[in-house]
């Protein structure tokens, strides 16, 4: 299909771009076009995977390029990772969710939810309900983070990311309980 035709121009010109969006020849936008990413990943892999890479390149370069394409693909497949990348592009070093501590009310809410998981009835239904609840919270946080990118407010976005991460821990705990 002509409309899908695409050549990674960086491949001939030299160093692999730092931005995963540039590696995939896409604008820095969220949400990403999943289908296009899948198609371009297959195309890129056919060109850069060590089985098919340019035989003139040294081994180290081949491994570097192919693992960076794989990392970029992994990042673009994960909504939160994609948003984190965009946020650090927009805000620079100001954006530091790791050093952000959510509000006490939020932390209380998390503690309660942790307890809720521990005391939950071990039924599939309860598990699925809780999982859905977490997923909805996370989706709404993703939306808020995306909106935050345009409001140019590093601190509130950092806070949203920190909250998202708390829900991620909650999710892991839930899965641990129900494995």
């Amino acid at each position: 299909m002509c409309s899908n035709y695409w050549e990674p121009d960086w491949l001939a010109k030299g160093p692999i771009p730092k931005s995963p969006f540039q590696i995939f020849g896409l604008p820095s936008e969220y949400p990403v076009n999943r289908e296009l990413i899948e198609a371009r990943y297959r195309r890129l892999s056919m060109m850069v995977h060590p089985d098919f890479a340019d035989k003139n390149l040294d081994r180290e370069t081949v491994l570097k390029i192919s693992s960076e394409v794989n990392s970029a693909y992994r990042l673009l497949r994960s909504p939160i990772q994609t948003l984190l990348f965009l946020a650090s592009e927009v805000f620079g070093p100001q954006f530091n969710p790791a050093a952000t501590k959510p509000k006490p009310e939020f932390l209380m809410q998390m503690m309660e939810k942790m307890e809720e998981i521990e005391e939950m009835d071990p039924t599939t239904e309860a598990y699925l309900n809780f999982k859905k609840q977490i997923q909805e919270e996370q989706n709404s946080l993703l939306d808020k983070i995306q909106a935050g990118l345009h409001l140019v407010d590093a601190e509130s976005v950092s806070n949203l990311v920190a909250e998202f991460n708390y829900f991620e821990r909650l999710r892991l705990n839930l899965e641990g309980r129900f494995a």
Partner: protein
Amino acid sequence: MSVIVGIDLGTTNSLVSVCKDGVPVVLTDADGNCMLPSVVTFAEDAVLVGHEARRQFLKYPEQTIYSVKRLFGKSYSDLKDSVSHLPFQMTGDNSSLKIKAGGRELQAFEISSHVLAKLKAIAESSLGQPVEKAVITVPAWFDDAQRNETRHAARLANLEVVRILNEPTAAALAYGLDTKKNGKIAVYDLGGGTFDVSILDLCDGVFQVLSTSGDTFLGGDDMDQVLVDWIIQKAGPDVILDAESRIAMKFAAEQLKIRLTEKEEVEVKLHFPAKNLNLDTVIMRSEFEDLIKPLIKRTIKSCQTALKDSGLELSEITSVVLVGGATRVPAIRKAVKEYFEKTPFTGINPDEVVALGASVQALVLSGGRRDVLLLDVIPLSLGIETLGGAVTKILLRNTTIPVSATEEFTTSVDNQTAITVHVLQGERELVEDCRSLIRLKVKNLPPMPAGLPRLQVSFTVDENGVLSVKAMETRSSQSASVEVFPSIGLSLDAVDKIVEESIDHAMDDFDVRMLVELRNKAERIIVATDRVWVKAQSLMSNKDIHELETALNETKMALKRGEKDKEKMQNLVDRLGDLTRPLADKIFTSATEDVLVGKSVAEI
């Protein structure tokens, strides 16, 4: 150009295949056999391999070695209990395993090399040309030690391994090219000794592995053993259990299992008067199915893990491919069909599909075709030991290879002149529950306060799945690097049980790890605060100083008594954090601040 063959080195049977005019075919021996039993007999004056070895087993019961693939990468102490039913003699310790055969003590790969050498000979006489290179398949769930044992066996048989390929991936390749269909497929591979399940996305020639899971100690062998136990029980207490009777029962059980896949009811007539073994009875298929139920259950559990890791819903799986002779058992087919909610594809011979796929990959690697690409993953997570015996993962399982990742660490003790990087493989949170791969040491560091060194640790896994580790202290530019080829045997607690356990213990682990991290964090804060204590007096009000002192003392006491209550620890650390943060803002450079707040990026 020299030919590259594809080899399926199986627990029970092995095959060699090659692409002729682009079409994969299994090569046969002079008698027309496709499959070579993976059995080696050390007779008085010769080493017999395959059918010959099987035919002579009663003559050399203690010299007939089979299922040796199950011993790959293991030490004697790993195996002691689980192989008591094997008729041949083994010895060793916690880092080695030797098999007594032919008047010598041999390692597992030395025995397997005879099978590979025979396959090489079969290929050479069938093709009429020398064969020096091969793609050899291994269970996806094999760890580094097991893969390396496979490489050793090939080297000894004078075969150059151009790629170690995962069995389910090879099967998917053969399947995909046969059906020419895109889709998301599950490969259920139950071999003689190992079980793998992989989920792949097949699209326009790219075979992308999404996830893989399995059990390196579960296969047709275990079904045979269940039947052997049944025979022993039926035969009564008088039966003599020695090498001879055990090997006879093992091969009888194998036949019984095969007949039970065809018939609902099978006569069992076993007469071995010298061993007091006289059995004349019948076994119903349903009886057999009840016996193997726990084994089937374990495979389905792995399927659930693989599906979850793939990020797909059950309904998105477009087809299920069965691989391995053991998948002929009707109860297996039924269980797979029930779990995946679709009839499994059985269009390709399940015994041959792996070898066929291997020869396709061999063709690709020899430059014979450029329209097929395999994107495989690492089956187990890789990480390093951090403070308090915790494992910080650097590469997560099911990450597509090649892959490279770098993380930064620091020290927790002042004036360290060397840092040891302990590399681990596995899913659990604590060092003792993961498999140790290697330790590497960065030496000659100038003395620096704790928290100041910047140790960059890089992991790279290449397209062959080989891990290399680099560690560099960036302030002094001291570095160390290594390619990981572990030599120690695998503990039974390791790979085959790692994920299963890690799910069972996810809760425990999570709590334990949180506690370890909290303690470390508390210690870091205490050390850092002590260092600036004098300065702090001039920067803080008396009230704040007093409050901080109380908090420090309480935390020190909690550490001293080894506080196990996570919440108590959390409260103490939070309080210390709150009290020291303003102080940190005032006096710390960015380098030391890291000590105070800890490595919180990695905790998320």
